[in-house]
């Protein structure tokens, strides 16, 4: 992260990040959702061609859910860049909180895709003509691990927020 040197006092500069903590969180979450949806499209649909555009077994509600989810992910991925630019402009970008939220967003999307889209709505499977169980397990466990890492990083930015406050009151 580059700080505006004009605003940087000696020691660690946190800028306006505390004022914009929740905006850091949302922009990270949006970026994570957009990123994982884009990776899903590029890696599994286009490169590996494991996923099918439409496997003709999909229910109506499955197509509707997938359309809404993907169009939201497309929007939020693009919007998140502008939110980051806005935070940087306000000297309020908080890398750790942002990255934590990115990982949480990516994991949540992956878990939703793996459980609701693949299993409940039966939208499409990860791969066809194979034993799907190991694929599903890897997919969803990875999603849970991502969520846990994201929550861990975010909780650290919380405690560092509290410590700072405690430190300030002592001074």
């Amino acid at each position, binding site marked *: 992260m580059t700080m505006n040197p004009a605003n940087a006092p000696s020691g660690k500069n946190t800028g306006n990040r505390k004022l914009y903590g929740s905006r850091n969180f949302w922009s990270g979450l949006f970026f994570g959702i957009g990123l994982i949806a884009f990776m899903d499209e590029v890696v599994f649909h286009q490169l590996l061609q494991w996923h099918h*555009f*439409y496997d*003709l077994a*999909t229910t109506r509600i499955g*197509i*509707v859910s*997938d*359309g*809404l989810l*993907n*169009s*939201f992910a*497309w*929007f939020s991925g*693009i*919007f998140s*860049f*502008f939110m980051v*630019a*806005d935070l940087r*402009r306000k000297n309020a970008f908080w890398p750790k909180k942002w990255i934590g939220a990115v990982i949480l967003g990516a994991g949540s999307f992956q878990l939703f895709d793996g459980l609701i889209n693949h299993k409940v709505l039966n939208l499409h499977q990860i791969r066809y003509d194979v034993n799907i169980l190991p694929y599903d397990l890897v997919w969803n466990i990875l999603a849970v691990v991502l969520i846990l890492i994201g929550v861990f990083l975010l909780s650290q930015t919380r405690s560092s927020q509290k410590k700072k406050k405690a430190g300030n009151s002592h001074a």
Partner: protein
Amino acid sequence: MPDAGEFLPLFLFAVLLAVAPYFSAVFLSNKKQRKWPTYRIVFWCLGAVSIAAALIGPLADQAHADFRMHMAVHLLLGMLAPLLIAISRPMTLLLRTLNVSSARGVTALLKSGPFRLMSNPITAAFLNIGGLYVLYMTALFHSMHQSPLVYALVHLHIFLAGYLFTVSIVYFDVTPHRFSFLFRSIVLIIALAGHKILAKTLYASPPEGVPRSEAEAGSMLMYYGGDAIDAFLIFFLCLHWYKAAAKGEASFF
């Protein structure tokens, strides 16, 4: 291209016809006002070429028989051309070219009830995406290829509804009735979802008489082409948010 000579004169004539009024307006208004930016002129020309390519020439000819080409026409006419033309700000140009009293008449018309209703993003989304559902889910698609009049009306609707939707979501041009960034974002997301849902539905159950392979390729072109052009729409919507956010905090709503 062996038959380029046949369509080229008509093609160029159509482009010229579309470009001439814009150029005249730029020329006239530049006399009294500051210079009209060149990039807007370029975008108007690109928009005119997109429309002409959709309606005249080999693409338009094949669109009658081939669903993939039909979708390419739809992307050009209903999505790309409206975006290019909106960026060129024809309404702003018109208002600065007209004398004050005529310009007031135009703005009064834009502020009137019917325009207020039509420029609501929800109405515009219904006219745009809803119109597509009517086209592909009813017998209209079939009768469009039977009657030149119906074909012309459908294509006029595709362009006008696409343009209306574009300017109702992103305020490139003069916009009397404004809605919040959040509201327009939600409508855009739902409209884009509607476009994706329709594309996948067409993949599974194409209009009557469209062969399986053409339907699959055509609906995938619709899906990914729509994504690509809508990415620009989202980009400009967010860019305007970014500019507004520099001024104040209440810019989400």
